[in-house]
């Protein structure tokens, strides 16, 4: 007996018939060859979120992102004109990596007036133009204006910075983000500038961690001990059902109840939460800022009074979680091989006015980390056993609809690349993995 109403078809999954309801192969998560195809078909061709405009506070602010899956490193920089731009992080002279610090494979950030190559000192301004060539007359008819940094498409949506490595891409970020993007436009992201970011190296395919965060079916079991005993028993008995699931093109979303802010019975939560009035769902009191009431229309699509959070999966590797308590969280999954990736979870709060607010946010951030360590610790174990291929097909339930959709979308991108001879973009061949 469902606690929340499902679509007329009887299930969320059947509401999107293209998804099917049969068992699903996880070969796409354990095959090195398939991963190489994903790099070309997905990461080298779609919009990737690389950060927020607050990270580029003033002209000359820059950061680099190692987009290993897309086969490059990019510099993202705010120009003298205030515009945010992105460039391949490569010097036009002889290919040295232009911006890095101490370790060439690590990301860096800072503020500068220009970029100077560590090798022979060529210089580039913040707009990417080559401005200085060491011993220029030694070159042969060198026209500096033809040796600017190679631009990467870069757009800003609601303060989120996106890049697309494919020079042939003609879709804007706004169009790419579709209905979900349009429906959350106007959320006061720009007021939430108190940031915590956690990073983990994870021994699984990138899609497996999205799987873990795109369903809450696991929550009453895997996270059982994080609730007080009686509450935990109750949650396991009930199981988990979302308020709503939606799919739009390659993207998906789940809307969930919860939040306990404040809980009906204070004894439902742990002593530290009782004392601080905060927990996994964030500080119980919403911050007093504009833009949270009314909320943009895509949030709480079921219009449920029990609404706790909405979790958007923006294909391929960006998740955005907006909480009823007035803060947001992002997840990034950066593949480094078919069975490894780097996970980043970033929490954004309205800056605290005093120590109490600060400590409430600290509890939310620490709680996030405890949960994420639990979410992450099953992944290597899953990856290992998927790779045995002892079992190859897996049943997914209706609460796992977003997983079905994610893997299907990723497979579709790969087959579209295969069957598109007119694809003007020919990626650099990637050496085979032995």
């Amino acid at each position, binding site marked *: 007996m469902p606690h929340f109403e499902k679509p007329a078809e009887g299930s969320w999954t059947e509401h999107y018939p293209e998804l099917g309801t049969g068992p699903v192969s996880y070969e796409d998560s354990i095959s090195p060859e398939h991963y190489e195809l994903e790099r070309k078909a997905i990461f080298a061709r779609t919009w990737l979120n690389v950060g927020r405009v607050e990270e580029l506070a003033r002209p000359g602010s820059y950061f680099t992102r190692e987009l290993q899956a897309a086969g490059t490193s990019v510099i993202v920089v705010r120009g003298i004109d205030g515009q945010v731009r992105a460039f391949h992080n490569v010097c036009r002279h002889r290919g040295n990596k232009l911006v890095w610090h101490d370790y060439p494979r690590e990301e860096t950030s800072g503020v500068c007036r220009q970029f100077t190559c560590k090798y022979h000192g060529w210089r580039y301004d913040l707009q990417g133009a080559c401005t200085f060539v060491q011993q220029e007359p030694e070159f042969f008819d060198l026209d500096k204006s033809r040796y600017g940094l190679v631009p990467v498409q870069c757009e800003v949506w609601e303060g989120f910075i996106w890049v697309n490595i494919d020079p042939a891409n003609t879709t804007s970020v706004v169009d790419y983000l579709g209905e979900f993007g349009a429906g959350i436009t106007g959320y006061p992201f720009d007021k939430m500038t108190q940031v915590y970011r956690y990073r*983990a190296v994870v021994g699984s395919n990138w899609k497996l961690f999205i799987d873990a965060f795109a369903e809450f079916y696991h929550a009453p079991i895997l996270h059982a001990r994080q609730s007080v005993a009686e509450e935990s028993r109750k949650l396991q008995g009930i199981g988990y059902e979302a308020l709503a699931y939606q799919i739009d093109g390659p993207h998906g979303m789940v809307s969930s109840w919860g939040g306990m802010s404040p809980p009906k019975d204070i004894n439902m939560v742990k002593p*530290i939460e009782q*004392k601080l009035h905060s927990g996994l769902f964030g500080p119980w009191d919403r911050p007093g800022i504009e833009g949270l009431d009314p909320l943009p229309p895509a949030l709480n699509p079921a219009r449920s009074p029990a609404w706790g959070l909405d979790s958007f999966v923006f294909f391929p590797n960006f998740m955005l979680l907006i909480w009823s308590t007035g803060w947001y969280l992002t997840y990034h999954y950066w593949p480094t091989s078919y069975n490894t990736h780097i996970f980043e979870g970033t929490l954004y709060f309205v800056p605290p006015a005093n120590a*109490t607010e600060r400590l409430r946010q*600290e509890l939310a951030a620490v709680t996030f*980390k*405890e949960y994420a*360590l639990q979410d992450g*610790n099953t992944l290597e174990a899953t990856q290992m056993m998927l790779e045995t291929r002892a079992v190859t097909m897996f049943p997914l339930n209706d609460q796992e609809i977003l997983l079905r959709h994610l893997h299907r979308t990723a497979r579709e991108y790969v087959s579209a690349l295969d069957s598109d001879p007119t694809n003007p973009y020919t990626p650099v061949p990637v050496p085979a993995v032995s």
Partner: protein
Amino acid sequence: MTEKTPVPVFPSEFVDLDPFADWALGTEAERYAKRLSSTMDQLQALYDAAFPRLEAILAYLDGLELNSLPLEATRLLWLAYSLVNASFPVEVWRQPRVPDSGAASMEAVIEPAV
């Protein structure tokens, strides 16, 4: 971990917390590392001493400007962060580490300045 902390560590009202001065650590990485290298008895002792004082700590700190706290007040805030961190082993896990997390780790790469 035997660094000597100068006196007074905390604002004078909180002299009872002096035995836990080594928990006044300014980064999540330090607090988490100290948690993992502590015994449950040590974590319980911190919790038992600091938890009943949390309301008083917040009342004291809320009277000050968060972004220009004097050093003793900052240490008190850091101690409160450690209490939050230690509450998980004490209230939930009954062990310092998240169960089954093995070698997995999650590094705080950005955190608030205060």
